[in-house]
């Protein structure tokens, strides 16, 4: 049996709770070619360089399907359910000039008009109300699940309001997203019987999710309603209206990315602080530290560990290697954020870390669209959790993790508590 590369080991489910020792090994070769022809980039400097390199495309349609795609269980095969359903590009899977135009058209509907982009700040009272309600709901309990009872309900409620997705549809799209993610595996286990058996279900879930978004957009096109999706479906701005397929693809991205990543960040924040009692106590004493603390948590446990749709449009020489034209490129943000060449003592949690230019939201033109909303949600949620929950203790460490490697996060974080302060 051929020995697995550090990257393949990092992707194994058994290492989901702690991929960092494998990332450390991986960084010894900053740009590492994998057996399937993918180039995995793990160091901060090289990742930032490639994030700003126009020879790197984010559009999977621009890369030839590698020979490995024929092989059962390869990454290509695993990613196929989403690729075959999402035939239209969204802003994370397209390049300039389409990318720039589409993102420019979407942005005002999210943040507000250019002269007064107030929509995110305006959400603060709503976010506080939701967080208050979730914490009030824990009164009288002595054990909570920081995922199901806290990290999940906040972002999903907020994104439904922002986008105009009816809350009563939440159980359906929650199920579709979970099913699709559980079927998406980029590592050696993609070939396993278990993952292969999930693939048909994953494909069907994405199809149903896409039909749901289509129907919602159709309804808003006939009868405008609240939220960003309706505004986009009826856009009469200077750049016109997005074609329906592109709009639907972006709607799926917004619903999915608009909560999934924030759930993981809140869950990881609670988990990380409970593992670091000194940091937790410091934050309790100095609540204003929540602002830099969330930046450190974004660095420490990044919600998007890597991204998989990029490829080289021409040969790229970097770090003593040539990435050949057409080769897939994975940029491992989770590793860059622990790179000792960039961050002093990177495995130490330092809520007051200076010069914290982390890649938790990436950089360059694909910098996280939802970052300002995510920051606000997590600052309020984690800040209030720390302030109000009495004597929280982890029940299980490490907690069980979700299957997918990109959107890495705990499935549950059970916490014993002594009560909730007012």
């Amino acid at each position, binding site marked *: 049996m051929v020995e697995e590369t550090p990257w393949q080991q990092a992707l194994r489910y058994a290492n989901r709770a702690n991929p960092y020792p494998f990332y450390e090994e991986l960084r010894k070769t900053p740009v590492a070619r994998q057996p399937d022809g993918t180039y995995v980039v793990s160091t901060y400097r090289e990742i930032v360089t490639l994030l700003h390199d126009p020879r790197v495309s984010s559009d999977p349609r621009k890369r030839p399907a590698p020979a490995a795609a024929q092989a059962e269980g390869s990454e290509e095969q695993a990613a196929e359910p989403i690729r075959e359903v999402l035939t239209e590009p969204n802003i994370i899977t397209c390049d300039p000039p389409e990318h720039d135009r589409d993102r420019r058209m979407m942005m005002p509907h999210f943040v507000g008009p*250019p002269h007064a982009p107030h929509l995110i700040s305006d959400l603060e009272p709503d976010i506080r109300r939701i967080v208050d309600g979730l914490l009030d709901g824990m009164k009288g309990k002595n054990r909570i699940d920081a995922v199901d009872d806290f990290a999940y309900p906040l972002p999903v409620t907020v994104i439904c309001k922002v986008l105009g997705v009816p809350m009563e549809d939440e159980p359906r799209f929650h199920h579709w997203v979970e099913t699709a993610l559980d079927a998406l595996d980029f590592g050696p286990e993609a070939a396993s019987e278990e993952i292969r058996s999930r693939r048909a279900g994953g494909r069907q879930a994405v199809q149903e999710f896409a039909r749901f978004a289509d129907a919602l957009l159709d309804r808003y096109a006939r009868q405008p309603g609240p939220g960003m999706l309706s505004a986009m479906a009826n856009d009469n701005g200077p750049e016109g209206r997005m074609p329906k397929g592109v709009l639907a693809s972006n709607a799926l991205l917004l619903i999915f990315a608009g909560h999934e990543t924030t759930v993981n960040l809140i869950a990881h924040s609670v988990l990380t602080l409970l593992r670091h009692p000194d940091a937790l106590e410091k934050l309790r004493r100095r609540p204003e530290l929540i*602002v830099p603390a969330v930046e450190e948590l974004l660095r420490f446990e990044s919600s998007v560990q890597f991204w998989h749709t990029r490829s080289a449009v021409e040969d790229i020489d970097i770090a003593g290697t040539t990435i050949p034209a057409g080769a897939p490129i994975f940029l491992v943000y989770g590793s860059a954020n622990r790179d000792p060449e960039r961050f002093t003592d990177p495995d130490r949690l330092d809520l007051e870390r200076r010069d914290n230019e982390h890649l938790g939201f990436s950089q360059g033109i694909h910098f996280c669209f939802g*970052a300002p909303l995510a920051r606000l949600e997590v600052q309020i949620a984690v800040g209030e959790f720390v302030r109000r929950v009495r004597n929280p203790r982890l029940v299980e460490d490490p907690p069980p993790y979700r299957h997918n490697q990109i959107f890495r996060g705990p499935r549950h974080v059970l916490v014993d508590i002594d009560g909730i302060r007012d």
Partner: protein
Amino acid sequence: MRIVVDLNRCQGYAQCVYLAHEVFRLNGQEALTYEPNPDDERRLRVERAAAACPVQAIMIDRLDGAEGSTTS
């Protein structure tokens, strides 16, 4: 309070604008302008904006250049 933005570092991500649009403003696609002496009551928003800058170009109350800080 007093703020300085290093406009050589600024790449127009506009994260500060979305968090404190009374203080930071983007003209056109990339040219940032800002109020260098915002009211103290805006401190929390300005601190959030500074922390959110992907290239850490916003400095708060850094008068002598000796001690860099975006948080205190």
